[in-house]
């Protein structure tokens, strides 16, 4: 019973990591940029979600609005921060991204205050019985929400023309352009979707902790970066698997070695261990 409970806890966190890390891996796959500022967008999603929920009382309204808003900000980030330096070596974009992330944290501090915000009335906190366990509605919503969103994404990538165009651009941008696919449009779409998902991730985490603060992107960003390396950089399936594995390892770790290190320390110890054994990632990606 304990095992099942830990497994479920792991899946809950794993889904949350997945929804953050997918945006990151999409950007890496397309542009070969480590998009650290993704975590800043994640935090912005948390803020917008919480503020809209507090103002309107509706989380269901807040989620799409925050996702769309952060998606647009993601497009602006691409246009202003990455687009001008695409032909420079990758570390230039990495430095720009880190700088942008720090700036975003400071902006949140100035605009929303340094101490963080809480919900007037935290949504989805009622307990429900699930396989003999008591779970919070929010936890189930995170798992099902992630499955639905990632499933939709996968459907779009397989079945729509724009999805196929996006995959073609990842494979060979020059040839894709040669057949009439505008690489700029694909990049905007990529940042819109990835950032929108990050926003949902930010809202999910705020539902568990009832806290949105300027630095909330920090730890998830390091984890997500490590996850996409584990999953084989740019490999979406690998990223999803790595997210779930990390969530489950964390959940079991907190029980068995929780007296030695906390949750985040366990996660990073595991990531370091795996990368020492398989530096190319768990699945050998492209």
């Amino acid at each position, binding site marked *: 019973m304990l095992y099942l409970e830990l497994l479920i806890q792991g899946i809950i966190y794993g889904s949350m990591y997945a929804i953050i890390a997918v945006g990151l891996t999409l950007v890496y796959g397309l542009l070969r940029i480590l998009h650290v500022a993704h975590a800043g967008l994640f935090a912005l999603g948390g803020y917008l979600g919480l503020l809209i929920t507090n103002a309107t009382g509706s989380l269901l309204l807040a989620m799409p609005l925050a996702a769309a808003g952060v998606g647009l900000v993601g497009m602006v980030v691409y246009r202003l921060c990455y687009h001008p330096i695409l032909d420079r070596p990758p570390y230039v974009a990495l430095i720009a991204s880190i700088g942008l992330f720090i700036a975003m944290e400071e902006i949140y501090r100035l605009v929303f205050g340094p101490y963080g915000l809480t919900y007037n009335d935290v949504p989805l906190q009622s307990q429900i019985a699930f396989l003999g366990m008591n779970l919070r509605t929010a936890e189930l919503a995170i798992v099902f929400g992630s499955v639905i969103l990632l499933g939709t994404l996968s459907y779009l990538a397989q079945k729509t*023309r724009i999805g*196929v*165009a996006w*995959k*073609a651009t*990842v*494979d*060979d941008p*020059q*040839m*894709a*352009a*040669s*057949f*009439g*696919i*505008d690489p700029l449009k694909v990049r905007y779409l990529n940042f819109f979707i990835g950032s929108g998902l990050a926003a949902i991730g930010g809202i999910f985490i705020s539902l568990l902790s009832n806290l949105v603060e300027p630095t909330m992107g920090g730890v998830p960003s390091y984890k997500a970066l490590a996850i996409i390396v584990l999953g084989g950089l740019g490999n979406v399936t690998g990223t999803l698997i790595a997210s779930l594995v990390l969530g489950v390892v964390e959940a079991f770790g907190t029980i068995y070695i929780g007296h030695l290190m906390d949750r985040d320390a366990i996660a990073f110890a595991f990531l370091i261990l795996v990368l020492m054994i398989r530096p190319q990632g768990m699945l050998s990606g*492209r």
Partner: protein
Amino acid sequence: MLRLDSLSCGYGAMQAVHGLDLHVAKGSITTLLGANGAGKSSTIMCIAGHVAVHSGEIRYKDRKITDASPMQRIKDGISVVPEGRRLFPNLTVKENLIVGGYSRSRDESNRELERMLSIFPRLEERLGQRAGSLSGGEQQMLAIGRALMSKPELLLVDELSLGLMPKIIDICYRAIAELNKDGLTIILVEQSTHRALEVADQVCVLESGRTVWQGTSDEAQNNVKMIDSLLGLREETSDA
């Protein structure tokens, strides 16, 4: 149909093609010959919009397209089968074809897909297979099919027969001849002089980025020795 007027193009400061003049008539097949590094692929990719023009002009259907983007050119009907095929290896055969027809409407693209599969039935059995896992011959058929999905009026083909079995080469050349009969204008880059001269109307031989011989294919047939020597093939038998 297409005119290159003293076209020079290249990569950064490196100039690969120097002052090339070429007139391609509608419905004709033009063959570009030349030794390795002569500038054939650079010329093809320049016409497709991927290599920077240093000077000179490209005119297509009486319009200057020197500065048009690759996306504009495919819409105008210029499509390319690039050197090395450059399929999208992680996409399926069908997805590669969908990308090929991306510049056309969904309906047009679906109609072209049917037509393509009737030209290359081998591809129909493999629609769901990853392009990267196809055999060399199937990849070349797919590369041609992908280029045709955009309903081009001018088809640029780089190295049609390279690395293929004679039987597959036959299939590819038959397809080229059929398409040409239906009015498609074609520029063909070839290593194998013999096959290329058979289908061509016009021949252009490049050396170090300059035209060293230009004429009709009949003239070329009568001067095969001379052309072979220009290509540096004199000591070898030119064809298998």
